[in-house]
């Protein structure tokens, strides 16, 4: 049985969510149908919506169900941009932090290429926290040209919590709607949509113990949001598509359960994470913890290191073959490995960034998991260091020297 330290990629489904999912799977009925089967399905979806709203400090009418976090982020970036620009054609700038997930960055860059947007990448400090002074300066200079601002609640790689209260207050002073991707935050830190002052917020099912393929965008009442998916007019016309009753039910159950358990689970995971950090530093003294050093300024279940002289890829393989599963960054970057844009934005060099490894805990994590990691890590680091950054070019003269 392998040790799973990649809960930020996805976490095991909670038994409560599995039960809600399987119970709903065997019931027929399209929530948009008017007959009794449809009405039963409708009821299940609306109860899920109310459950989600209650757990997240939102009104039920503010919950737009989507097929996951990426869709919710796309809807936020595109929908807010189009709507805000329609109200005021001068507003064409999309402000995003430089450490956003690709689900926010890529739609923003797509809008720059295809919809006349201008991207403003807001810098972060060396901990990965948004520089409020830079945001303030940007808004001071071009606040009346900003269509939206998107800053994540907590960074998925280094776990840095972002100063969203200040962010929202600043942006609203300039009439700029604010979206936050809170995919990693829900269940780990208190997330209250109404209290946050945010205009839109992304939640994902499978990061909190729900199923994959479901999520939601919380959109403040009265917020103008241009639809991205067109069709049957579900979700108040903002997000068409047959409502996914089993996923909605399980998603809501997972969010409710995780949020209710948070006061107990989060401190337990924070203590376990603190031990993991201390132990990793003990056995690999030159490992560099990335993200805020103050454990209260980062997600309780997140630990992120760079290991000098190692490729994260090599470490990942060596740990995997020793039975420990972790990540070099966000799983969405898997495939062709690239140095993390998050670490680069924090000022790390490319070689440093290549040696990144993220350990994330979850509701099933135990002390024994950390013990196993600490046991196998030194040998893996030693071996990865011997393999070095071997993908790098050696110095080769242009002609003849390569043979």
């Amino acid at each position, binding site marked *: 049985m392998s040790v799973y330290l990649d809960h930020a990629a996805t976490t095991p489904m909670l038994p409560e969510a599995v039960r809600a999912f399987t119970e709903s799977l065997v019931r027929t009925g399209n929530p948009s149908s008017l007959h009794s089967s449809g009405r039963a399905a409708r009821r299940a979806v609306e109860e899920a919506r109310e459950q989600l709203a209650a757990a997240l400090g939102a009104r039920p009418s503010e919950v737009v169900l989507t097929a996951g976090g990426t869709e919710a982020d796309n809807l936020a970036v595109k929908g807010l941009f189009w709507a805000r620009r329609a109200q005021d054609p001068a507003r064409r700038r999309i402000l995003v932090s430089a450490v956003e997930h690709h689900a926010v960055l890529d739609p923003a860059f797509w809008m720059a290429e295809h919809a006349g947007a201008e991207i403003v990448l807001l810098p972060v400090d060396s901990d990965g926290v948004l520089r409020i002074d830079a945001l303030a300066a940007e808004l001071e200079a071009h606040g009346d040209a900003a269509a939206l601002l998107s800053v994540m609640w907590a960074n998925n790689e280094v776990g840095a919590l972002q100063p969203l209260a200040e962010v929202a207050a600043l942006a609203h002073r300039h009439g700029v709607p604010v979206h936050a991707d809170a995919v990693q935050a829900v269940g780990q830190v208190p997330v209250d949509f109404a209290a946050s002052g945010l205009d839109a917020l992304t939640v994902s099912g499978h990061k909190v113990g729900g199923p994959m393929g479901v999520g939601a965008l919380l959109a403040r009442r009265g917020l103008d949001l241009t639809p991205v998916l067109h069709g049957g007019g579900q979700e108040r016309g903002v997000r068409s598509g047959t409502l996914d009753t089993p996923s909605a039910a399980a998603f809501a159950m997972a969010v409710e359960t995780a949020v209710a358990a948070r006061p107990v689970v989060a401190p337990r995971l924070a203590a376990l994470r603190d031990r993991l950090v201390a132990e990793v530093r003990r056995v690999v003294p030159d490992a560099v913890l990335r993200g805020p050093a103050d454990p209260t300024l980062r997600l309780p279940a997140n630990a992120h290191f760079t290991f000098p002289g190692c490729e994260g890829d090599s470490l990942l393989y*060596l740990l*995997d073959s020793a039975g420990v599963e972790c990540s070099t960054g966000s799983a969405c970057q898997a*495939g062709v*490995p690239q140095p993390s844009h998050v670490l680069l934005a924090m000022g790390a060099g490319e070689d440093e960034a290549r040696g990144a490894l993220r350990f994330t805990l979850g509701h099933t994590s135990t002390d024994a998991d950390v013990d196993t990691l600490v046991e196998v890590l030194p040998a893996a680091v030693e071996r990865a260091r011997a393999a070095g950054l071997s993908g790098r070019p050696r110095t080769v003269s*242009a002609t003849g020297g390569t043979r």
Partner: protein
Amino acid sequence: MRVLAALSGGVDSAVAAARAVDAGHEVVGVHMALSRNRAQLRSGSRGCCSIEDAGDARRAADVLGIPYYVWDLSERFEDTVIADFLSEYAAGRTPNPCVRCNEHIKFEALLDKALALGFDAVCTGHYARIERPGGGQPELHRARDAAKDQSYVLAVMGPERLARSMFPLGDAASKDDVRAEAAARGLSVSAKPDSYDICFVADGDTQGFLRERLGARPGEVVDTTGAVVGAHDGAYAYTIGQRKGLALGRPAPDGKPRYVLSIEPVSNTVVVGPAEALRVGGIQGDAAVWLARPEGDDWSACAVQVRAHGEAVPAQARALGDEVEVQLADGASGLQGVAPGQSLVLYSGTQVLGQATVRATTPAARA
């Protein structure tokens, strides 16, 4: 053994990995990302650099139940294989990028990293056989299927690297057999078309690639007397032995077709002349790599091959330091148009003796 199986996304490497699994090895699949362009260097399924190929490689690993990783060797690839390709063409030579890739990427960058990470060997889908008579030093031999034999592009490896290599397809009867085996194993790549062209050249347009990367370099085309008979936009567009596309204004005095005989990089001149001037009598090679070096510096009988899909012709060869001298046997059917930069590989029967890079040739004596 712990075996790293290089998975290109093609049928050969997938079946090779499957055979390594069957042999009881602990196998991990690795796909090499060689394109610096995140999308791909070329589209379609014929190269080894597309996202589709990476997906096919991953799927093959899934079917085999082995771990799968992508290793980014693109910078190394750009700085060795592509840089060499460009500088060699710019110098009027004719490189073989597949040989350079085996030399610097598969059996150097990949193999070195694999060994450092604790693997015992690298397994690829090449068609060649490794034999260890009496359990001793490994020998490299031609594949059982002569039509698919790839020993020519593998000969650049020294014995230490060969000892860490596995070519499970060396004994395959034919590519059709390998495809059938892939289908029987449930590998979805079983019907995938073969790759032929240079993987990093889009659409197979080598001239366009060279023009784009090297720019126009106009110069003269002259005959063997030095008389100017035409003009060119870049000598890299010409290959020794080439007849078509010379666009010479005047016909030769004797009316016979003319061929590219040599490319002079310093004067940026392409020299053309009659077919018989292309016949090669001797070849000098440098940067020799020996798998079975002849004793001393005496001439020994062997066969020499200068193209991946060319024939080996009878010859005598001797080793001089890290150089090789080859004399073609009298009456040998004749090698024509051997270009500096090409690889020459020496065989004894099916066994590869060694490899060198052609530096110069001497013409055959007039018959």
